[in-house]
């Protein structure tokens, strides 16, 4: 009944579909690469019907080799760790660490249950107050129990981003000024050189004292501890952004600058239309480095100043000296590492959205 389709047309259509599929896969490859999942591309291509040969090699290199490396690391860890006897028992192997992940999770669940009970009690209390004619005493309160592991992670993330945002707000304008004016650059240079290598542990006491002196309100927006950690992060992490911004601005194409002069652009337009776009790749490189530094610094700051977050978790466990402490600290170490990696990927993703010349 229906007209027989010409086998040639069929083949052509199939070829076109394949072509489209591959274009799509190649397009997605960019995203995978940003996410650090570039091994998916060859897998998809094989599934789409490409000849496996060359792709298998890619898969081997991108997926199998890293997996084997991780397995080797785990095996080495599992065999060597129990041989180191500390006074808290042997160094925990991967299995004990994984067990503690479970324990931390069930601790968190228990805490959530207690939180729910707390709100029930609060409701009962408010009800009683209402009946007693003390309605003006009724207040909404937040639960005051121990922070869960998840909430510690969340606190650390908030702190690092807050510090990082301040650092960016400070570093980018100064960096642009440095890049535009050689004299300003000469003025800033010694200060940058001296303060750049200072450790967070040296900044912390100063920041603590200054924050305590200046931020005296008790019911402000921020906790003092939060501000102390965040500002320490700022002080240590603004340098890569500053230096890279200055470099990026200073190295824009002289022709562009001349065009700007000919067109008699005002400073604001010049910065927005000429300087920023061409300096963006380097600015983002700086931001990526800054966030990495900030994350590293934050953990140290939290540890020393006992500010809430993952750093405090590590320090508290070290002080607890229980037989599970080492395994718990290792859970934190792995968490810190994985989050640091994800943060870097996030910045890389943003970087590749804004710039075309981003290289790894």
């Amino acid at each position, binding site marked *: 009944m229906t007209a027989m389709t010409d086998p040639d047309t069929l083949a052509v259509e199939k070829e076109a579909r394949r072509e489209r599929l591959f274009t799509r896969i190649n397009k997605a490859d960019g995203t995978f690469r940003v996410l650090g999942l570039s091994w998916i591309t060859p897998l998809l291509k094989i599934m789409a019907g490409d000849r496996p040969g060359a792709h298998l090699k890619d898969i081997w290199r991108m997926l199998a080799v890293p997996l084997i490396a991780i397995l080797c690391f785990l095996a080495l860890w599992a065999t060597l760790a129990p041989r180191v006897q500390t*006074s*808290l028992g042997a160094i925990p192997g991967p299995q004990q660490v994984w067990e503690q992940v479970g324990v931390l999770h069930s*601790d968190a669940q228990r805490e959530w249950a207690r939180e729910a009970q707390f709100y029930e*009690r609060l409701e*009962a*209390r408010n009800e*009683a*107050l209402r*009946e*007693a004619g*003390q309605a003006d*005493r009724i*207040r909404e*309160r937040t639960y*005051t129990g*121990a*922070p869960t592991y998840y909430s510690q992670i969340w606190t650390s993330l908030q702190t690092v981003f807050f510090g990082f945002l301040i650092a960016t707000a400070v570093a980018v304008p100064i960096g642009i000024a440095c890049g535009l004016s050689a004299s300003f650059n000469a003025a800033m240079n010694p200060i940058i050189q001296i303060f750049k290598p200072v450790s967070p542990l040296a900044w912390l006491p100063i920041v603590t004292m200054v924050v*305590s002196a200046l931020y005296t309100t*008790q019911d402000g927006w921020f906790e*003092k*501890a939060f501000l102390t950690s965040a500002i320490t992060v700022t002080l240590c992490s603004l340098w890569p952004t500053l230096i890279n911004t200055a470099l990026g601005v200073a190295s824009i194409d002289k022709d562009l600058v001349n065009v700007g002069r000919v067109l008699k652009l005002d400073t604001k337009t010049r910065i927005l239309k000429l300087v920023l776009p061409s300096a963006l790749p380097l600015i983002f490189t700086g931001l990526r480095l800054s966030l990495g530094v900030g994350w590293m610094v934050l953990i140290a700051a939290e540890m*020393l*100043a*006992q500010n809430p977050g993952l750093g405090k978790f590590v*320090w*508290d*466990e*070290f*002080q*607890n*000296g*229980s*037989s599970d*402490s080492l395994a*718990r600290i290792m859970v934190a170490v792995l968490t810190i590492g994985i989050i640091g990696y994800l943060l870097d990927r996030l910045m890389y993703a943003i970087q590749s959205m804004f710039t075309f010349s981003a290289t790894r």
Partner: protein
Amino acid sequence: MLATVLGTGAAHAEFIFPEKDELTFGFIKLTDMAPLAVAYELGYFEEEGLYVTLEPQANWKVLLDGVIDGQLDGAHMLAGQPLAATIGYGTEAHIVTPFSMDLNGNGITVSNEVWAMMEEHVPHDDAGLPIHPISAEALAPVVEAFNDRGESFNMGMVFPVSTHNYELRYWLAAGGLHPGYYSPDNTTGQIDADVLLSVTPPPQMPATLEAGTIHGYCVGEPWNQQAVFKGIGVPVITDYQIWENNPEKVFGMTAEFVEENPNTALLVTKALIRAAIWLDENDNANRPEAVEILSRPNYVGADAEVIAASMTGTFEFEEGDVRDIPDFNVFFRYYATYPFYSDAVWYLTQMRRWGQIAEPQPDSWFDEVARSVYRPDIYMQAAQMVIDEGYATEADFPFGTDGYKDPTDAFLDGVMYDGRQPNAYLDSLTIGLKGDESVGG
């Protein structure tokens, strides 16, 4: 029902509401913070309408600074801290205490190496066990041996005005070893010292001993029992044996806070009294539960068996040498929570003895300082509320006391202490400043 939910006495017609009801209290990871953990976990704070956050602190200095600059509304403190801050030794601030947290609870531990050297100078009983209490006289030859090979003998304590510093000094001095003086220019406390004492935060004691930086330490529990469990040290004496039922930690708040929030201070004290009662109730029947609470990572966090070793009426000296010390940690019995002036005065005498108070002071000065820091008035008001609500009886509290305990000689060296005569007490001690003496340099 309403009364319990609102936490106010049925006998009282009106409610007492705290001026500030969201509070943050600091503590150090030690078993004697138990009243705070118990008051929180058993809901005593909440029943008083107090919403409390408990935060472990890195060390005693950070904790004190937190209270002074208002980050913490109150804290588990060394008894010497409010006194020293009020007289301006170290950081100056007027801190008061309406509640004494416990009696006893500390020990002195030495490394295995030092114990091996000490043991031959310690008398043993027929069963071959060392006879307690062990005097620092047994340590003297060890210190000499260290000095002979050109090494100093170092010991750790937790803070310059800590109970532990004074207990360790008391023990050393009673055994003829000089622990060193403080002077206004030299606050290391090592002038003329045979044994050099330095500050280490409590939870780091075992690690520091293990690292060999110190050869022994004086600290609260569970950090002595931890040394036994880890096999790195041997407790030689508990503070119960140095001074039977000596006062330990206090709960401190700034005078300003107490003045601005009198109801809050009162209700906090009430919740803490109830927690202390619970801890000692029925012959320590609740202690196993307390141990479980304390072993949680957000409180002390050490293994439950380590905490239980001292919290349940025993104390393990050498590995396997477990002895009964039913009063090792007292939270309520013997009026443990009442802030006696005589306790404050004892701490002041020790500050004077070792030169932290550089100038001689008349007896009346000791009394005045004690009265400005210790607040039994708040305590008794809270106690009355606890009685009214049926949680305790009048016999549980020292009604009618003038704040001075009877003179006592329950010390290791048998010296008589009368809180009303601090200068006479100082004169009766062999090692230490007395009369008009002062330390130069």
